[in-house]
């Protein structure tokens, strides 16, 4: 089963080619890592998939539906959720309210949404702080809140944008554990990350972007040896011919 299929997706911002002819498929539940250096186009690709960025050309299917150019709220209601590298918490809402709002938007009744929000806050380890304003929490907890908010939509595809960036080693390790368990909820996870070592152990497929071009797709071990990938990360001089 193909959950998401991109074909020839390109994005141009004025004179900058952010994505060039990107083609790939994501299957069912599992963890996919989207890696690449800064400015590679990872967040732009997330924007195209989740509806915030309009592609210049190409096609995008979610299931059997052509979705290129859809609105973010359409993506959310169809089962695509995302988180952000710089967390986007609403300043006047508590953790619980964030999660509950997403559950309500996904069509749950108020009572069911509240129960689901409480359950999700618990499952990401935020029960103790669920009634605090989300903006007041440390970064690690805000990232967990964003994951809980995304899960409240009942997504089949979850996009995690640099979810581990800026966390301490302990926080990153705990979050990796949490992310590893997501496929058991029948969720396909696509995670972007700079640091290959953090996501390689949990990803079953790695996609590598460089300067807007998808330069490699495959199992982590295979991608890690790919000379094109090594050149993109380390420079040509470091790659043994």
């Amino acid at each position, binding site marked *: 089963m193909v959950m998401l299929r991109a074909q020839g997706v390109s994005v141009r911002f004025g004179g900058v080619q952010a994505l060039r002819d990107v083609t790939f498929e994501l299957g069912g539940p599992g963890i996919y890592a989207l890696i690449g250096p800064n400015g590679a186009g990872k967040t732009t690709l997330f924007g195209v998939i989740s509806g915030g960025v309009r592609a210049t050309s190409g096609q995008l299917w979610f299931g059997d539906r052509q979705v290129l150019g859809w*609105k973010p709220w359409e993506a959310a209601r169809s089962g695509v959720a995302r988180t952000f590298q710089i967390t986007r918490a*609403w300043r006047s809402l508590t953790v619980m309210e964030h999660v509950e709002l997403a559950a309500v938007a996904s069509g749950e009744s108020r009572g069911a949404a509240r129960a689901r929000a409480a359950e999700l806050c618990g499952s990401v380890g935020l029960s103790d702080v669920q009634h605090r304003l989300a903006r007041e929490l440390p970064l690690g907890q805000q990232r967990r809140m964003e994951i809980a908010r995304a899960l*409240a939509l009942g997504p089949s595809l979850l996009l995690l944008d640099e979810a581990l960036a800026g966390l301490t080693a302990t926080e990153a390790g705990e979050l990796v554990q949490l992310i590893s368990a997501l496929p058991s909820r029948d969720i396909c996870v696509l995670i972007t990350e700079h640091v290959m070592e953090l996501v390689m152990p949990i990803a079953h497929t790695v996609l590598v972007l460089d300067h807007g071009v998808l330069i490699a797709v495959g199992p982590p071990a295979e991608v890690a040896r790919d000379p094109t990938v090594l050149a993109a990360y380390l420079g040509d001089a470091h790659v043994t011919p």
Partner: protein
Amino acid sequence: MGLFESGVVSGLLVGCEYALVGVGLTLIFGTMELVNFAQGDLVMVAMYLVFFLWSGAHFDPLLSLPIAAVAGIAIGILTYEGLIRPLTGKPVIAQMVVTLGASAALEGGAQLWLGPNTEGIPNTVVSGFRLTAGAVTVTAPEAIAAFGAVVCIALVSYLVHHTRMGASLQAVAQDPYAAQLVGIRPRRVFMLAWGISGITIGVAGALFMQTYAVDPTVGITFAIFGFVVVILGGFGSIWGAFFASLIMGVAESLGTTYLSEYGLAVAFAVFLVILVVRPMGLRGTS
């Protein structure tokens, strides 16, 4: 001493009424960062509606209040759908200029259609009653208008701060993109904000006709006072606008009591002093 007490009470009552305009304005600004220059003129339209219900069908303003509130919702939503939404994605200044145009059109249209005459409702069902406490006397229309305004503002505040609908509104106001990513449609929420703002317009129309007369230019007075209390209260803050309106009302009333025609000057002097001390307004955060 009696003068002072009367001035304070009178100012509080006027402040409660004017707060309705400020709350309607601040709700739109808080949600869309848009200043609706036509807010005062929309209140003028609602006042005429209530006046015509009285002159044509002998409806007392209090009886007209629910009708005016429903009409206000329609006015708010039509204003959004007809004037603001077509400019979605354009600079906010374009939307503001459209509301400015709407203000001029409403005022000019009213002048053309109804002429410059001032119309009032001399005898409402409560106009013969008075409340007296010590040296202070309050007419029943004044008291009812102020009480109605406070109830309406409390209701709006409850909707915004304690309901799911309000949480959606806050989410869109604070980060529209993140709101969309949890499935919230901004268009629906903006329509909701204009609808709620419309309630304040309709209710203001019915309550103001208890104590004021209407003419085609009356909107500008309400609008100026409304803008001032929105700034003084802190942009986007409902209760900030309310308390700012009370302060302005009392300042103007006491100024008029002791300095006759300088009442408005006193109110604006107080406004400037508070802004110098607290540039973000009473309940503003930045």
